[in-house]
């Protein structure tokens, strides 16, 4: 069973902005029924270059529907310029995160948005011009390189999670590995992908840490009779105090590093260091 956040479940059960804008200014169609998910996004843009309305139709799983619904909510009232900069990570984060294997659903949202904007401005989508690497899902090298750069991907498995490439027959695995090595080498010397992402403000960071502790870490520890309290966040240092059965547990250091720190690094910031308040 997938672990979906409450936000994902809410947007899946009660999707917002379902349908099609009749006299849309931009239409974006991505995905296909063979691939298992597809999205049609329609947008309305006013004379001030502001998106006034957005609607969607999606064939796909819960996270595909939720990503589409969330995307339309984010777009309404957004300047076209800002919409152009929206990343798949922004969509996933607005949903409180997606399971790793479902990140491609957020990528589909971003791709539909780009297609809709290109349809509006009359631009040609550069991504579609690349060379198809994964024939099962029709993914081009340009799409793969972009996903590697934008999401700081480090493995072929990551590429599959984000773009679906390699998730079918698996014949393109060698090509994916080559693209990964090339792209990562190209990125070296430059700021890393993680750092390149929009910098998180301290406030955002604390909120996000709090959210992950409350939503994920605490319930898990409580299952074993333990508990955790967030004491302080100072730069990358997160201070917590372990309680309940965790407090006297000889493997509490393992819990701290292997579980708490790993979770926070995965979901908030790669550079976080978790310490115990003694």
């Amino acid at each position, binding site marked *: 069973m997938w672990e979906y956040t409450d936000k994902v479940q809410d947007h*899946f059960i009660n999707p917002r902005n379902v349908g099609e804008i009749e006299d849309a200014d931009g239409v974006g169609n991505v995905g296909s*029924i063979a691939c*298992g998910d597809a999205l049609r996004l329609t947008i309305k843009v006013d004379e001030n270059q502001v998106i006034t309305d957005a609607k969607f*139709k*999606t*064939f796909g799983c*819960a996270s595909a*529907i939720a990503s589409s619904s969330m995307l339309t909510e984010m777009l309404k009232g957004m300047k076209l310029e800002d919409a152009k900069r929206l990343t798949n990570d922004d969509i996933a984060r607005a949903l409180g995160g997606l399971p790793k294997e479902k990140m491609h659903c957020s990528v589909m949202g971003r791709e539909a948005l780009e297609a809709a904007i290109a349809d509006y401005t009359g631009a040609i989508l550069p991504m579609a011009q690349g060379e198809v690497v994964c024939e099962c899902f029709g993914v081009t090298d340009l799409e793969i390189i972009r996903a590697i750069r934008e999401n700081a991907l480090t493995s072929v498995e990551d590429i599959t999670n984000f773009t679906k490439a390699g998730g*079918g027959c698996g014949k393109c695995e060698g090509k994916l590995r080559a693209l990964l090595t090339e792209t990562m080498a190209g990125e070296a010397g430059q700021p890393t992908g993680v750092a390149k992402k929009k910098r998180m403000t301290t406030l955002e960071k604390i909120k996000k840490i709090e959210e992950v502790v409350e939503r994920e870490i605490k319930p898990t520890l409580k299952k074993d009779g333990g508990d955790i309290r967030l004491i302080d966040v100072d730069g990358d240092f997160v201070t917590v105090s372990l309680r309940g059965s965790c407090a006297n547990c000889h493997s509490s250091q393992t819990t701290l590093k292997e579980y708490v720190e790993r979770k926070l690094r995965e979901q908030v910031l790669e550079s976080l260091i978790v310490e115990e308040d003694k």
Partner: protein
Amino acid sequence: MAVLPEQVIYMDNNATTRIAPEVLDAMMPYLTQFYGNPSSMHTFGGQVGQAISQARQQIADLLGADPGEIVFTSCGTESDSTAILSAIQSFPEKNHVVTTRVEHPAVKNLCDNLEIFTGRKYHVTRLPVAADGTLDMQRYRESLTDDTAIVSVMWANNETGVLFPVEEMAQIARERGVLFHTDAVQAVGKVPINLRETAIDFLSLSGHKLHAPKGIGVLYVRKGTPYIPFMNGGHQEHGRRGGTENVASIIGLGRACALAAEKMEEENTRVRALRDKLEQGLLSTVPKALRNGHPTQRLPNTANISFEYVEGEAILLHMNQLNICASSGSACTSGSLEPSHVLRAMGVPFTAAHGSIRFSLSIYNNEEEVDFVLARMPDIITKLRALSPFWEDK
């Protein structure tokens, strides 16, 4: 947070079943008072050995086998691995295995990776199936060669319930001098089996599919069949499978097999009627709904229905809101990106494969539950189709 059994409509019995109350009753003494080791010399332990013998007899009775042909394992997967690896090690000069494209991962993935396990290259013939999930017997006959070490073909398919004619296939294999294994995990307890009258050499079964606990399986090994153990160790199971017996679960499985024999008729009458009502109801009330699998050559409890132009995980999550438990062959439920290998082998089009739902019933289901599901499914599908960009033009 927890969902209690009395709140759910459980139609996922091909995934696992509830432990029958009679089975639990039979097990309890062996989880509490009678904790002795059946290998011990003292009566306290030895009496447990007698209880195991009785369970072995109950299992043999359901299968039409001798108790000496029953080997206890930890699960269906272990039984499958034991049978296939035993056969190929017994015939090191042979390098060919015959199976089908629709096997459970327990057999499929083993056959895909034989080289890793054995360090030798194997040629694997994976027999195709027709659109209704049935096998072409002529192709099967032609696939057998002098190099074939073993045939492994499931008795009933876990996704569609389609039955393969394994008794006839085993006979053909024997005539060619080839060992025959069947993964009968879904079939045992639902269809009559009498191994004495067949040429089947190995048969796998799993306790938790027939109202016994998880963690207990059986491999039937026909007397005289060459055999090399998968797990070595103590003298348990006459050296055919080392490791202290999972006593309580063995007792439970024995009781479950006796119970299955008693309930076989109900399974094939009342449960079949419930399944048929559910299936017919869904096919007639939901437009563009299709049955996957042969209409009659099938388990009595399984209905696999595709709802075109919607995605299975989304359907399951809506059903989950109503506490209806079922499964899907969609890509998204498994973490893989492609829909079920079984439906793809049958050539089910993508429009339908992604939207397949498997309902699998048991003797614990009733008509009220079927009526509830029938009343609620059309709305779920309509709701999701309203979201689907592919539905409008249909």
